[in-house]
């Protein structure tokens, strides 16, 4: 039997998940929807499906990474970290600023470590901070090479305008799907990761073939709120 307290504490994680959905979903399908190449409904459905798949299949990896940063093994600590991160993301989103959920969660964990006089693993922190420097550089390099490659390919093949439009639309869908999967795998893990060590959720069996582990059930809760944020705010 799961204690009701757990769900009260989990509410801050769900709030962070909601903030994540309303902020980050825009990064995935925003271009395709605002340029009217994809309908909102299509984008939202694809987003929902692949965020869930990403969170359930690969969500654990990111949560392990954050888990090394500091021991947030009390439910109250997880609640505080998620609430502070959720408020940060929500406020930034309100101001129209794109914000990193990971940075907000890392800030929350460090704050909790300072409050509870727990050690912060500096090696993990520098590794995580390193990804913040590397991510935009890698993103820029990927964008540059992909742009050059596609541009050369288009100049070589000279596709008909209609086919170019067709493939562009398909490319936007694939990129969005990939982005949604990554959102589920990376960010949902970050959002719910702080609850993993204090979660009482156990593995459950669905039918004969499938089972969901405790962390996966946790990530599904996070995803549900994230999707609610993305649909409710309607700002993919």
């Amino acid at each position, binding site marked *: 039997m799961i204690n009701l307290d757990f769900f009260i504490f989990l509410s801050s994680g769900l709030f962070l998940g909601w903030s994540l959905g309303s902020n980050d979903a825009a990064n995935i399908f925003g271009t395709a929807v605002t*340029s009217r190449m994809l309908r909102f409904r299509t984008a939202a459905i694809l987003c929902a499906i692949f965020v869930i798949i990403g969170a359930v299949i690969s969500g654990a990896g990111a949560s392990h990474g954050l888990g090394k940063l500091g021991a947030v093994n009390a439910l109250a600590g997880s609640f505080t970290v998620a609430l502070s991160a959720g408020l940060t993301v929500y406020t930034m989103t309100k101001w129209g600023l794109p914000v990193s959920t990971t940075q907000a969660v890392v800030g929350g964990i460090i704050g909790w470590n300072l409050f509870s006089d727990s050690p912060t693993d500096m090696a993990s922190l520098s590794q995580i901070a390193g990804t913040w420097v590397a991510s935009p550089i890698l993103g820029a390099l990927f964008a540059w090479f992909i742009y050059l490659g596609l541009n050369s390919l288009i100049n070589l093949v000279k596709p008909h305008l209609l086919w170019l439009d*067709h493939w562009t639309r398909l490319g936007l869908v694939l990129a969005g799907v990939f982005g949604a999967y990554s959102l589920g795998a990376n960010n949902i893990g970050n959002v719910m990761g702080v609850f993993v060590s204090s979660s009482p959720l156990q593995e459950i069996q669905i039918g004969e073939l499938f089972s969901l582990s405790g962390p996966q059930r946790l990530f599904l809760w996070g995803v549900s709120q994230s999707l609610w944020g993305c649909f409710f705010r309607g700002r993919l």
Partner: protein
Amino acid sequence: MADFNFSPFHTTRILQSEIQEFLDTVSVAVLAYQEGMVAYLKEGWLETSEEKLQQISSYESRGDSLRTHIGLTLYTEMLLPDTAADVLSLLSDLDHLVDRMSGHFTLVGIEKPEFPDDCSVVIIDFISHACGAMDHTVTASRIYFRDPKAVHEQIHKIHYHEQEAEKIGIRLLKSIFNGNYPLERKCHLRDHLLHIDQLANQADETGDALAIYAVKRSV
């Protein structure tokens, strides 16, 4: 079931063939107009001219229906909105060219203007340049769909034909108004020459617009 808003392959194929057919229709309408006008100048309004008028009229109605269908499909199922607007505007301009040719040739059939015999060769040259401008506009349009950077190679040919048509048109008008014809005949011939000149002008304007569409796609 979700309605995925990217076109299935068959819609793209059908639309591509419809655009191809539309451009073919404009192209053959230009040929029919040129042949019809030359036939009228050489032998008067006989069977050949009547036959060409029927052809041009059928091309006009086919062009109209194709343009309407292409426009609907473009806006409902395909293309970045900005590009769709450019494509539709281009097709609309080309369709307008066919309408003008059809309108003018119908007028020729009704009014039967009496062009002076000594001007026939120059008028044929005049028509040839006007039709050349229109033909290169169609060629440039075909290129736009595949290789926008190569469009400008056709644009200067459109300009050349339009400028030549304008020079010949002015020379013809001077020659007619300096001639010993009644004023009403002079005015009548002037109207028809202006109709032909308008075709070259509109082809030139379409070419200019096309150059901008091509730059937008190349950026």
